[in-house]
């Protein structure tokens, strides 16, 4: 058993999917180079107002209530991808029959989705969730299902053996509908000839064509005539050609007027994210990377290009997540925070969003595991804190292989259970050891005036921190160290551990004599 999903008036449907607020408006789609743009598709509302295909854009514009949109190949390709996603959420065997048509093999799916009618209705509902109004037909062969979907609206079920009877009422033109694809001139000519022939014979529907004697038809129209008759009888038999391309989850919106503020941009991003997440859900995918590309009206600063290879009038941001996630609200907040920190800097003409699919994470919490932050919540918290203190000031630390002070770098904080368990085993032995005296660092180090006595510090005064001031009552050192002498940023220093007598108490500090600059610095306090 096969099902076919067909999107009527595909160009209009693709625009309505991206801009659902136009659903109740009269809509015309134009194509061509200015000033020769012509209307290529209209919806019912526009038809009622007298807008017809092949009108010029200037003629259509005379009707002020009609909304005109340029045909967008990218929007159509995303609508097509959504259609295939819908089909593949029901069956792994899906044929990409045309831009507006997908055929899927339903063999063995009854146990999962129920009777054919229930399946067809479920397919129709899922397509509606993805923003597409579709016709769905179920038949015993792929071509019969496809013709029924193109000829009948809503849901059609053709029982096995009743194909000729059910398809009989369809007009003959349905046989020649090539979906959304453009036909070559030669093929168009041949189609026109056959249609004219059928018209002369008085063959106007499938029933009439099916009733013609095959031999006589073959004599007059050749093998093509027989093929068309088999199709009209619903008796054509062929194997499905499954689609094997990897899925691409991308969505695009082109705006009529450039967007300047981030608030309306967030509104459009929300719509794109909803569409992408709905598509990911149908394929049981999560995402770990979102790539946002904004086409800008003008571009002044070349250093705004955050990614190598992007075009000069494009602004790209990539949102990398530590774990696969699927939450449009979370993604929207993360993108908003990112755009707040890195604004595009010019009005936006077009928004393009790509999600890299990833397998959902399969971690199971345990009753006796210690609490850990929820990944989605934590990601949002980290993004908010990064907006507050700066991206380089939040994360976990990683020590570098150097003896230089502050030899560390910040990296992303990713709670990782596997790493955790490893470390836990390792650190169990350390539990009962004595507390380790810690150093509290001054960043940057405090410049100090030091009075020397017998080569060692005797009195320290620091202007920036008043409490670091007094006589040295105890000292140990110097401990000499140096490094990176082969680099431009070489360092060489003497370290002293000193105890300073304050007004009330004695405090321990690390005093550093920079041998290259000759300066004295208080690097930190032992606390």
């Amino acid at each position, binding site marked *: 058993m096969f099902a076919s999903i067909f999107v009527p008036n595909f160009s209009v449907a693709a625009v309505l999917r991206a801009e659902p607020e136009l659903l109740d408006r009269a809509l015309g789609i134009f194509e061509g180079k200015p000033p020769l743009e012509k209307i290529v598709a209209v919806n019912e509302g526009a038809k009622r107002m007298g807008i017809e295909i092949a009108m010029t854009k200037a003629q259509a514009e005379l009707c002020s209530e009609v909304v005109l949109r340029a045909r967008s190949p990218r929007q159509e390709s995303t609508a097509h991808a959504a259609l295939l996603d819908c089909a593949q959420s029901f069956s792994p065997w899906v044929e990409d029959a045309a831009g507006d048509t997908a055929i899927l093999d339903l063999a063995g799916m009854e146990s999962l989705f129920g009777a054919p009618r229930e399946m067809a209705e479920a397919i129709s509902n899922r397509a509606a969730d993805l923003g597409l109004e579709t016709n769905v037909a179920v038949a015993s062969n792929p071509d019969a299902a496809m013709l029924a979907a193109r000829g009948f609206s809503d849901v059609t079920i053709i029982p096995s053996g009743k194909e000729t009877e059910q398809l009989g009422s369809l007009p003959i033109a349905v046989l020649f509908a090539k979906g959304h694809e453009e036909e070559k001139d030669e093929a168009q000519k041949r189609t026109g000839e056959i249609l004219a022939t059928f018209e002369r014979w008085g063959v106007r529907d499938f029933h009439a064509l099916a009733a013609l004697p095959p031999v006589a038809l073959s004599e007059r129209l050749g093998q093509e005539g027989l093929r068309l008759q088999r199709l009209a009888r619903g008796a054509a038999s062929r194997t499905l050609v499954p689609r094997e391309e990897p899925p691409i989850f991308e969505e695009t919106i082109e705006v009529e007027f450039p967007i300047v503020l981030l608030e309306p941009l967030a509104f459009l991003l929300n719509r794109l994210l909803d569409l992408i997440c709905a598509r990911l859900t149908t394929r049981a995918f999560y995402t770990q990377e979102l790539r946002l590309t904004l086409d800008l009206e003008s571009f002044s600063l070349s250093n705004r290009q955050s990614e190598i290879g992007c075009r000069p009038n494009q602004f790209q941001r990539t949102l990398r997540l530590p774990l696969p996630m699927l939450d449009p609200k979370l993604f929207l907040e993360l993108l908003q925070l990112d755009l707040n920190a890195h604004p595009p800097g010019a009005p936006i003409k077009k928004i393009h969003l790509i999600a890299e699919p990833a397998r959902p994470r399969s971690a199971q919490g345990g009753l006796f595991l210690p609490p850990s932050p929820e990944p989605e919540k934590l990601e949002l918290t980290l993004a908010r804190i990064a907006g507050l203190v700066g991206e380089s000031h939040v994360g976990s*630390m990683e020590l570098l292989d150097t003896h230089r002070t502050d030899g560390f770098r910040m990296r992303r904080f990713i709670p990782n259970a596997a*790493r955790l368990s490893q470390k836990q085993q390792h650190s169990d032995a350390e539990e009962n050891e004595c*507390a380790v005296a810690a150093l509290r660092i001054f960043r940057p180090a405090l410049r100090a005036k030091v009075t020397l006595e017998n080569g060692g510090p005797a009195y320290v005064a620091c202007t920036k921190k008043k409490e670091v001031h007094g006589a040295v009552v105890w000292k140990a050192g*110097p401990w000499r160290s140096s490094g990176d002498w082969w680099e431009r940023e070489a360092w060489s220093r003497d370290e002293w551990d000193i105890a300073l007598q304050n007004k009330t108490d004695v405090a321990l500090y690390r005093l550093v004599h920079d041998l290259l600059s000759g300066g004295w610095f208080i690097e930190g306090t032992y606390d």
Partner: protein
Amino acid sequence: MSTAVISTSAAQGRFFIFDDESDAGSHAFHDPEPASSYIRRPQSAIENQQSKILSTVTPASRLSVRPAPEMVSSGIAAIDTLTGGLPRGCLSEIFGPASSGGMTLLLAALAAATRRGEFCAIVDAGDALDPQSVVAAGVNLHQLLWVRCGGHSPQKNKITDHEIIKSESFLAEHNLEQLLRAADLLLESKGFGLIALDLCDLPPQTARRIPLATWFRFRRAVEHTPTVLLAIERQAIAGSCSSLRIKLGGNREKEQLANCETKPTHARLLTGLEISAEVVRSRMERKPVRTAEITFTSKTAWAG
């Protein structure tokens, strides 16, 4: 008299005690009368009834036995002996002057928490954490989130360099604001075993400006969660919001230090800090806190 502890409301979050043998108490919870009889009753009678019920309610603060929070190890055996550890779902304050051992205690608590497999966060007002000390203390770096206040945030860029240099108190306030907002976000996100707020590098006058309402909010946010909220400061500032307050001090007299070693300076070694800890407030105990003090020694990483 049999007693039962009943949580009155999630919003209040306080515990009250009801006497089962009391007429009014049992009346309130095993209502024998239909609702319509209350409607017919005059207002004064209802008020009398209400006052009777309220008179039987004992606030949690007056209970002889109070629900004790779960205590976890602070990472230092002496502190655990003194306080029983650090309470979960409560705010604990550790304060003391410079070189009193605040950072040592903080890192020990972080190390103990990461050893338990918990995730920890430290909000560092002065960007003063030393990664070498963190590693030496045994903290698992993968489990520690470090928020360094005072970064080049967009808000800071709006201020000219001249103004920043001119006013150091402005910087301190800026850092404090970042600390409080980051702490709010972390407490809201939940799931951390320990959240530490390091306020030691803020000038005391700036730290004292934190409104009590903020501490109260922090306390409420952490209540009924398994998170230990730990604040280390130069002076105690959280008032009655902290459940445990430990005062630290260093045992280093000038004369002691001057005379302790007669070796030349290059032959001396700083081997550790002698730290004294005193519990000055504990809401875990029923009776007023008696002064309890303990002294312990921490070792430097190179002391062996």
